[in-house]
């Protein structure tokens, strides 16, 4: 057989064409190609599911031959690539909370869980969380694994030394709103000039937006980022800057880590899982931290889902696995295992969550997080939401750095946000 240059080139082009055609055809038919039956392939990221629960679930369904793959790195990207590739698509996959909004337009790639009888269990999960995985036309794509209700973590020793209350109940009573919180910050700074009550005004802005019932784009794909609810969050963040109670310390940075332990970052407003970061950063301040409700009400950061792809051989069997795995009992176990905060209110009464935490001076954190989880506001999150938020946080950073006035930065942020929206057909 002779391989000439011409046949080589022709062959190469044929191969290339083949791939292109292969790609585009799999895009259309991929959703109908079923996986082989008798096996359930499951994907999640490291630490996404509790290990004991996972092992127990695999043992509980011996006939399903659950094959679990821990997919590290950029999980969403790997999932998208695999879905496009058309082969080796998992039956059950995790979807991260920050990615769920961008997955909703791809509802045809996933099984509508309502169509295979998930109705009976949806009521066990927090309503607002299920809503995050529900399309505008009512399809439910995922069952919640966990949630991220926020609270105010604070240093009891720094608060009392600065003339503020130290007891969580009293803190809750005094710091009802962000205005109270900023006023307390001014008071604290008078006696302790190194302690800034707001770690980072930009983070504060994000929290306030998350506390709202509307975001940047509404259900009719209209831009609402220039309206009062966003401007109020902006103004509160700017107020933290002008009152000079903003520590300008980015969460997760070396300064933040050091500040937590040294008392220069005396509060953190964050989701339940932020406790792990605080614990990792603190060596000398163990037992001096407390948890109080978030001023102006709870918000949610993160929390993921398990979904069933259209390629699943037996969606009903896959749903049974999910049902078992994410039952209230097992979500409580996952919390004990890896601080995965349950999305089922019934789990909050289980002993695993009722435990007192010596890091928080023997306080029982669920007493704050439990009520917070149940009253988180529901806001429609457009697929483009996180992209449109960028100009606003950037604008705030410029105000923080003293490079721009609040009004100038605001109008620039609104213009930029509209520009990004235009690209995706937002009105």
């Amino acid at each position, binding site marked *: 057989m002779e391989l000439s240059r011409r046949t080589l080139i022709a062959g190469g082009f044929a191969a290339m064409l083949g791939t292109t055609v292969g790609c585009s055809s799999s895009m259309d038919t991929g959703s109908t190609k079923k996986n082989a039956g008798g096996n359930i392939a499951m994907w999640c990221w490291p630490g996404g599911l509790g290990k004991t629960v996972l092992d127990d679930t695999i043992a509980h369904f011996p006939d399903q031959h659950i094959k679990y793959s821990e997919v590290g790195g950029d999980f969403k990207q790997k999932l998208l690539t695999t879905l496009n590739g058309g082969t080796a698509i998992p039956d059950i996959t995790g979807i991260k909370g920050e990615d769920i909004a961008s997955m909703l337009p791809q509802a045809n790639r996933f099984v509508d869980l309502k169509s295979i009888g998930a109705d009976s269990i949806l009521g066990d999960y927090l309503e607002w969380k299920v809503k995050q995985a529900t399309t505008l036309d009512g399809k439910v794509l995922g069952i919640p694994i966990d949630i991220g209700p926020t609270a105010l973590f604070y240093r009891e020793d720094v608060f009392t030394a600065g003339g503020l209350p130290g007891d969580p109940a009293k803190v809750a009573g005094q710091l009802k709103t962000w205005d109270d919180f900023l006023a307390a910050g001014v008071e604290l700074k008078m006696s302790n000039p190194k302690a800034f009550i707001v770690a980072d005004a930009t983070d504060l802005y994000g929290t306030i937006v998350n506390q709202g019932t509307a975001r940047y784009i509404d259900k009719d794909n209209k831009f609402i980022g220039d309206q009062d609810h966003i401007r109020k969050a902006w103004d509160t963040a700017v107020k933290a800057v002008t009152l000079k109670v903003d520590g300008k310390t980015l969460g997760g940075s070396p300064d933040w880590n050091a500040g937590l332990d040294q008392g220069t970052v005396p509060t953190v407003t964050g989701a339940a899982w932020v406790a792990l970061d605080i614990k990792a950063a603190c060596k000398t301040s163990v037992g001096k931290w407390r948890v109080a409700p978030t001023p102006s009400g709870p918000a949610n950061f993160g929390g993921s889902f398990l979904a069933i792809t259209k390629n699943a051989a037996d969606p009903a069997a896959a749903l049974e696995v999910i049902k078992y795995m994410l039952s209230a009992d097992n979500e409580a176990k996952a919390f004990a295992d890896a601080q995965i905060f349950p999305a089922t209110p019934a789990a909050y009464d289980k002993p695993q969550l009722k435990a007192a935490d010596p890091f928080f001076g023997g306080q029982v954190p669920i007493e704050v997080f439990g009520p917070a989880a149940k009253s988180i506001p529901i806001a429609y999150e457009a697929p483009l939401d996180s992209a449109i938020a960028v100009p606003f946080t950037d604008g705030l950073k410029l105000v923080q750095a003293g490079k721009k006035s609040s009004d100038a930065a605001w109008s620039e942020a609104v213009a930029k946000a509209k*520009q990004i929206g235009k690209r995706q057909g937002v009105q």
Partner: protein
Amino acid sequence: MTLTATAPAKAPRRTTKPGRRRSVLSFWRFYLALSPFYLIFLVFGLYPVASTILLAFQKWDGLGPRKMVGLQNFGFLIEDSTFWLSLWNTVILFVMSTVPTLVIAMTLAVMLHSAVRFKGIYRIAYFIPNITSLVAAAIFFAAVFSTNFGLINAVLRSLGLPTEDWLRQPWGIKIAISTMIVWQWAGYNTIIYLAGLQAIPTEQYEAAKVDGAGPFRTFFLITLPQLRPVVLFTVIMSTIGGLQTFTEPQVMVGNNGGTGQSGMTVVMYFYNQAFFNNDYGYAGAIALSIFMLVLLFTAINWKLLGGRGRQ
């Protein structure tokens, strides 16, 4: 070929075949031996490139059907102030990092060339930053430049100078990023210059010495002109690398480029559009613009540094 050698009787008939065709066919073994590279290049090089160019004219969210939109992505690109900002940042960062890198590298190379002892140890020491994990180094540099507990501010404080919020100021971000690039690439270029220096014949230096040239005259009249091709190589490699800066700002100031998006480079903007905003078509258009930018800068370098040598 072996056939013509062992059977001379058939040779005349063979020569009647058109020469070009014969030579192509009879070299099939060589083509076969070369083919792995070309096949891999086709699949992992040419196809993605072609696909990206196609993508630049489409709208695609990563999963749904692709839609041809013509030049729409480029229209958005021209109006997009963040894109122009990222382009400007990239060029500024490139100048801020490449010029010091090459000057330092040249100085080090000349010093190393004349050093007698511990040459090997110095070479290894200068090269190590280049093979250090980029992410680890970026985390380290972010710590060095951090406001309250960073090394730079500690030194400033001990000298009684005012400290700076390095990673919170637009210029501070650029200084931090370019410092890291200089740290990482100076040693690599030193080694290349050193190799170039060692190739210059010693007779030229001896002749210069006899003519009474001092060390500076010798450097500018002999060393630099002789090194011109090596300098061209390092400048082009630095251009290609520098215009694709991504990891350093991403780790140091986050995906949005920090205050005033001062650390937002074009590659980072491209990455954000594709993998955060799921706007793959727009990202394709940005990628194409990076390609044009690298091409333009390489052409400028070539004209400035390479062109004169031939005249």
